[in-house]
């Protein structure tokens, strides 16, 4: 699988796609998200796995998003995503609130190829009361009345993430972020940016293999150095907290966000592209 360039990956994700994204601390594909904004993608239906962060806030602010299914839209210590909050107030996006383990469970169902999976808890939450697509049934294995939540399988059209490295067969290494494996397995296709391409086969290396997502799930790969920025990448680089804090402040206003976009997204095409 020959690496492509970042814009080619961005071009694969069509307007209206159901796109799964990891949270900020879990290999967020921020360089690819900037490329998506530059290609002027529209009507994305985002899924936060299980929460949404910086990249989702950028996409919302740039007008690329129709719906967000997520358990939270947060910039960590910097608080609620400002463009997310503004869009909810304005009613310009549809938010489908979930709870973290429900997102994981719905993706596990898709990973397994089953139509649903049960989850304990959640009963009585308004999150559930606003999900007509969820289903409560009596546990058929219980002697007494035992209501339990069933979540329908969630199959994203695409998942995108930024991994440490890939080999020439398209296997990618995500290390301990195994929730990304579930997301990748559950999705119809994955587009992945990496810091580097490594020689050899990652799956033949017994030390690396446990952190690998097999190339069987991967549609395309691009090299994007520091592609998670301003997020961090495992032990390779830390999150740029100062930048995110600045963003959280600036992006509170429409004008501030527009300025941010012009400076850090529209004008960084060469910087982000490998």
């Amino acid at each position, binding site marked *: 699988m020959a690496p492509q360039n970042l814009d080619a990956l961005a071009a694969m994700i069509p307007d209206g796609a159901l796109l799964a994204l990891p949270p900020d601390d*879990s290999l967020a594909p921020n360089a690819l998200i900037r490329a998506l904004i530059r290609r002027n993608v529209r009507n994305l239906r985002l899924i936060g796995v299980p929460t949404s962060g910086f990249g989702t806030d950028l996409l919302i602010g740039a007008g690329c998003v129709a719906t967000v299914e997520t*358990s939270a839209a947060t910039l960590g210590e910097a608080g609620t995503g400002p463009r997310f909050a503004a869009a909810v107030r304005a009613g310009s996006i549809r938010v489908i609130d*979930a*709870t973290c383990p429900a997102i994981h469970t719905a993706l596990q169902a898709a990973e397994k190829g089953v139509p649903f999976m049960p989850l304990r808890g959640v009963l009585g939450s308004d999150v559930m009361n606003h999900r007509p697509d969820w289903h409560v049934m009596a546990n058929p294995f219980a002697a007494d009345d035992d209501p339990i939540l069933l979540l329908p399988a969630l199959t994203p059209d695409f998942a995108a993430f930024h991994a440490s490295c890939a080999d020439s067969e398209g296997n990618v290494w995500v290390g301990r*972020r195994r929730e990304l494996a579930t997301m990748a397995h559950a999705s119809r296709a994955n587009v992945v940016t990496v810091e580097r391409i490594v020689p050899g086969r990652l799956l033949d290396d017994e030390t690396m293999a446990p952190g690998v997502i097999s190339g069987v799930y991967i549609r395309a790969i691009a090299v994007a150095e520091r592609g998670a920025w301003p997020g961090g990448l*495992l032990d390779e680089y*830390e999150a740029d907290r100062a930048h995110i804090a600045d963003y959280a402040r600036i992006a509170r206003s429409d004008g501030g966000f527009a300025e941010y976009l012009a400076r850090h997204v529209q004008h960084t095409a060469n910087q982000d592209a490998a």
Partner: protein
Amino acid sequence: MTTIAPQERLIATIARLILDPSAHPARHVAVGMASPIPAAACWLLKKSGHDIRISLLQRQTGGPFSEGGRELFDLAGQGRIDLFFLGGGQIDSEANINMIGTGEWPGTEFRFPGSFGSAFMYMTVPRTILFREEHTNRVLVERVDHISANGISDRAVIRRGRAQALVTGRCVFNFDGNRFTLASIHPGETIESIDANTAMSYLTPPDVGMTLDPTEAELGLLRGAVCDEMLSTYPDFCQRVWGRSLQEAEKAAN
């Protein structure tokens, strides 16, 4: 003796609640994102020699899990997490918490980040300590606008746990499964000041005492060994409360 920072008092208060001998034993405590005070309370117990496992979710490297973010929820689903912490933009008389927002669904007046795992953790973990520093009439309300996680469940619903207590910047409330009772008030507060700032219902027993100060030994640990453990994960908090920065610590180590 130096001045006790309000955060130090909250940390020690939470540590004492964790040890409550009348409650389900806390062998494995998990701490969510952006929770420096609960995290510090766990470290204080650990550094005091208590046999307690802490799983801190807010760590970019290291950290307790190898199955990704899902493992915390799987552990909780099995009942292997004994105690968790939750906050909320609003908390009400029935210990319902709202992390969604105010106004019409899904928070058209003021939007909070979202419910995270609260709807699950509140029911699967035997004990939850509610913690919210801001103690005002807009936070502690009679009835939350939206329920992220409900404090009380129908009888038929399998529920492993509930809130043990609510710790705020002004006081501690205990929760008995039905309602809150004022347990202690922090220095500078009165029964009246609590009442004036609380829109949720609660009982006030006749003999409400003051929240205990941290001991000298606790303060020593907080400012030393606990801060050491927290520096890389919560640099801003350590700077604000203890005036220590990661950079200085790294310099000192070299």
